[in-house]
C-alpha cells in the first residue's frame, strides 16, 4: 500500500523526467528498427531474386550470428568500436533486428503465388510494377508481422542499452539498482512493458487492416 502511494507521488512529481526517458527509449528503438527495415526490405527482396544459393545462406548466417551474441556482450563490444552513448546502442539493436526482419521479408515475397506473378508478367506488368503492385502488397502481412515482433523485442532490449550510456528507461532501472529504489525500478519496468504492449497493439492493428481484405 505504501509502495503504491510512493509510486503515485513519484509519477506525479517526476512525470516530465519519466516522459523524457520514455521518449529517449522510443527514439532508440524506433531508429534501430527503422534502419533495420531500410536495410532488410531491399535486401530480403534481392535475396529472393538471387539464384546463387551460397551467398544467400551466408547473408542469413551473418544475420543469425548477431542474434546469438548475448545482448549485453554486443553492447559492450560497441564501446571500443563506437564509444558510449546513443549511437552505439542504436547500432547494436539494429544488428539484432536484422534476422527477424530479413527472414519475414524473404518469406513474404517467397510466399506470393507463382501463378499470380506469372499472370502479372504475362499481362505486361514490368518487373518494377510487379514488385510494387503485386509482390510487396501480397508480402505485406508477413513483413508487418516481422516488424511487429522485432519492435517488441527491441523495445525490451533497449532497456539494456542504458548500460553503455544510451539513456532510455533502462536509466531509471539502473538508477533504481544503484539507489536501491523500488519505485525507480518499477517505474522503468512498467513503462517499458507499456511501451512494448502499445507497439504490439498499434502494429497488430495495422497487420489486421492489411490482411483483412483477403
Amino acid at each position, binding site marked *: 500500500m505504501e509502495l503504491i502511494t510512493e509510486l503515485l507521488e513519484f509519477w506525479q512529481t517526476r512525470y516530465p523526467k519519466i516522459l523524457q526517458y520514455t521518449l529517449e527509449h522510443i527514439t532508440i528503438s524506433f531508429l534501430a528498427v527503422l534502419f533495420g527495415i531500410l536495410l532488410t526490405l531491399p535486401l530480403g527482396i534481392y535475396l529472393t531474386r538471387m539464384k546463387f544459393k551460397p551467398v544467400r545462406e551466408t547473408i542469413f548466417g551473418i544475420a543469425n550470428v548477431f542474434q546469438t551474441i548475448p545482448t549485453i556482450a554486443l553492447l559492450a563490444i560497441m564501446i571500443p568500436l563506437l564509444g558510449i552513448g546513443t549511437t552505439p546502442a542504436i547500432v547494436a539493436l539494429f544488428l539484432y533486428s536484422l534476422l527477424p526482419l530479413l527472414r519475414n521479408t524473404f518469406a513474404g515475397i517467397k510466399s506470393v503465388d507463382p501463378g499470380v506473378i506469372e499472370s502479372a508478367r504475362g499481362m505486361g506488368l514490368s518487373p518494377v510494377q510487379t514488385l510494387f503492385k503485386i509482390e510487396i502488397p501480397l508480402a505485406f502481412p508477413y513483413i508487418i508481422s516481422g516488424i511487429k515482433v522485432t519492435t517488441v523485442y527491441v523495445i525490451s532490449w533497449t532497456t539494456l542499452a542504458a548500460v553503455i550510456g544510451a539513456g532510455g528507461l533502462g536509466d531509471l532501472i539502473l538508477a533504481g539498482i544503484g539507489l536501491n529504489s523500488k519505485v525507480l525500478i518499477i517505474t522503468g519496468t512498467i513503462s517499458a512493458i507499456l511501451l512494448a504492449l502499445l507497439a504490439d497493439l498499434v502494429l497488430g492493428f495495422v497487420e489486421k487492416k492489411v490482411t483483412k*481484405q483477403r
Partner: protein
Amino acid sequence: MIELKDVQKIYEDGFQALKNINLKLEDGKINVLIGPSGCGKTTTMKMLNRLIEQSRGTINIDGTDISTMNPIELRRGIGYVIQSIGLFPHMTIYENVATVPKLLKWDKAKINDRVTELLEMVNLDPDTYKGRYPSELSGGQQQRIGVIRALAAEPSIILMDEPFSALDPISREELQDELIRLQREIHKTIVFVTHDMDEALKIADQIILMQEGEIVQMGSPEELLRNPANQFVENFIGSERMAQAKDLPSIEEILKDSVVSAGENGTTNEALGIMSEQQLDSLPVTDDKGVFLGQVSLYQALENPDTKLSDLKLQKEGFVSTEDHLSRALHYMEEYRLNVPVTDVDRQLIGIITKSQLLAIMHSYYDTKNEAAI
C-alpha cells in the same frame, strides 16, 4: 496471323524442348495445342508473348518479328489466362479486370464501362461483383474473371494455358460452352493449351498435336479423327472417340460407284429416262467435260418435255465436294429438297448422294449411338 518458322528451344542444360516448329495460327480461330506433358505445348505458347524466348527461328505476328518488339508492350496487346487463374488476391474484381486498361492509361469512365460490359458478357452482375475480392468467388466465377481480364484491353490474340483444367467437371463444361459462345461474338485469335482431348475436340478450329517437341499432326478436329497421322495420334485420341467419329462416314465413303448424269446438250426426255431407270427424282447435268452445271428435278423435266437441258433453269446450288463433312450434304438436302451432287475440287462431277442413302446412314448412326448409350 501468327507464324512460327523453324522455331527451336534448347534450355541451358542442353534439353531440347522444341525441335523445328513450323506453324501458322489463323486469325479469329481457336487453335488448340495439345499433347502429353513435356511435349512442348506450353513452351510454344509462352514464346508467343515472350515469357520464354526461342533459341532459334522467328515468330511473326501479323508480319512483325516479335523479337524486335518491346516484350512488355507486346504482352499488353495479348490476353493471357493461366491454369491457376492468377487473379490478384489483394485487388477487387474491378481492379483485376482493369489492370491492363490502367497500364495503357485509358480514362476512368472508359475503363468502368469496359469492366461493366465484360462482367455482363459472362453473366456476372457488375454491381454485385465489381467490389468483391477473388476469394469471395467460386472457382468457375474466378476463371470467368480470368478470361474477361484477358479480354479487357481488346487484344486480338489471347493465350490460354490449360485455363479450365483445375475446375470441377461441371464448371469446366460451362466455361467451354461460354468460350465458344464468346468467340462467336469476339472472333479473337485464341491459342489454347490443354491435355484434354475432349476439350480440344469440342472447342478447336485447329488442333496442333505435339509430341516430344515436335508437331505430329495439325488440322481440324474432323481431320484428326478421320485421318490420324500415325499410331501415336490414334492412341492419343483414343479408340472410343475414333469409333464414335467413324459412325458418320465421309462423303467419299458413301459415294455411288457410277456417275449418273445427263449432258447439257441432252433433252428432258433423255433425263427422265435416266431418272426412272436409276430411281432418282433429280439428276445432275454436266458439260461435255464432265463439269457440274446444275440439277434438273423430276417435276421440272415432266413440265418441260422435249426441251434441251441447257435451256432449263437448273439448280446450280446445293452440291458438295469430297472435302466437305457429311452434315453439309444433309443441310443442302433439307434446303433444296434434291439429291446432292458431289464434285471434286475442280467441280468435276464424281457422284451423287441420294435421300434414301442418307436416310439409311442416319438410321445406322443413331442405332449404334443408342446401343452405346444402353
